[in-house]
């Protein structure tokens, strides 16, 4: 089973819009990432996000290529400082591949917890729009790949 952990793409400042939708760059980054995932032939069986606008918008863009454009679900337990317990439980009860769009520091803690058992156990350089692909095997979780929008010049 694969678990795709995504940090929402860049959003506008609170002063510009209190709900913080994606910025122009953020939207372009999400689209680049969606194209990359399409080329890489990635499809998931379920997509969830935190419910914050920047996560929802990122999830909607990625869903176009990885989840046949379906509307991703909001779930509890993906807020920036939430415990990772809920997503861990969801990952364990999900058989197909799952993509979750959320925030920092949550996503870095989740990656580290999967790989090392400790939320501060590994160092990952997430930036807005980053996707990390973890795979659960008989040996536990392993990192399969990771991609960030700034590495994708034009796609």
């Amino acid at each position: 089973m694969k678990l795709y952990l995504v940090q929402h793409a860049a959003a506008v400042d609170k002063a510009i819009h209190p709900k913080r939708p994606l910025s122009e760059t953020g939207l372009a980054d999400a689209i680049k990432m969606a194209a990359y995932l399409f080329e890489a032939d990635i499809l998931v069986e379920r997509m969830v996000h935190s419910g914050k606008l920047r996560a929802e918008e990122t999830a909607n863009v990625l869903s176009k290529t990885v989840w046949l454009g379906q509307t991703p679900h909001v779930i509890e337990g993906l807020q920036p400082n939430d415990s990772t317990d809920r997503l861990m439980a969801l990952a364990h009860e999900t058989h197909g591949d799952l993509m979750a769009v959320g925030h920092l520091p949550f996503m870095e803690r989740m990656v580290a917890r999967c790989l090392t058992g400790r939320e501060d156990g590994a160092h990952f350089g997430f930036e807005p729009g980053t996707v990390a692909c973890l795979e659960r095997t008989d040996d536990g979780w392993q990192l399969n790949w990771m991609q960030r929008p700034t590495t994708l010049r034009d796609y």
Partner: protein
Amino acid sequence: MRLYLVRHGKAEMGAHDSDRPLSARGRSDVEAVASFLKHQDISVSRVVHSTLTRARETAEILATALAPDGVMEEMDGIEPWGDVRAFVRGLVRWDEDTMVCGHEPFMGETASMLMTGRAGGQVVTVKTGAVMAFNRSPFGPNWQMRWMIKPRLVRGPKPDED
């Protein structure tokens, strides 16, 4: 400083493990990765490879695309049986953006060591032709993984695979 850890492409079978060349598939996998990275404007000043043929051939393909003015050098101690801790300790003295072409389990253990401080634990699956990019944090000795790709992501699935 950026550090790229690479596992050699798929190699032919052969009598002597150290002489096995890349297979046609291995060569085209590494070429696909090299051309993807070149297109993303990634370049390095130094490409290092192990003493084994498949790592040297992988390095040659990557160096042509990503280090046209750079140097290529052979390095002892990064063979499959190399000493991961000694290699990681040596990185302290490195300051140029460098790509290191080697093997499993060495590369996966090095990646684990950089990210978690421990070589064991198998935290990463390193397929043939995969590249992992790390950044040394300006705030301390910690390395962060920035991205990781494998041939399958940039060339699509082979019909009889996955």
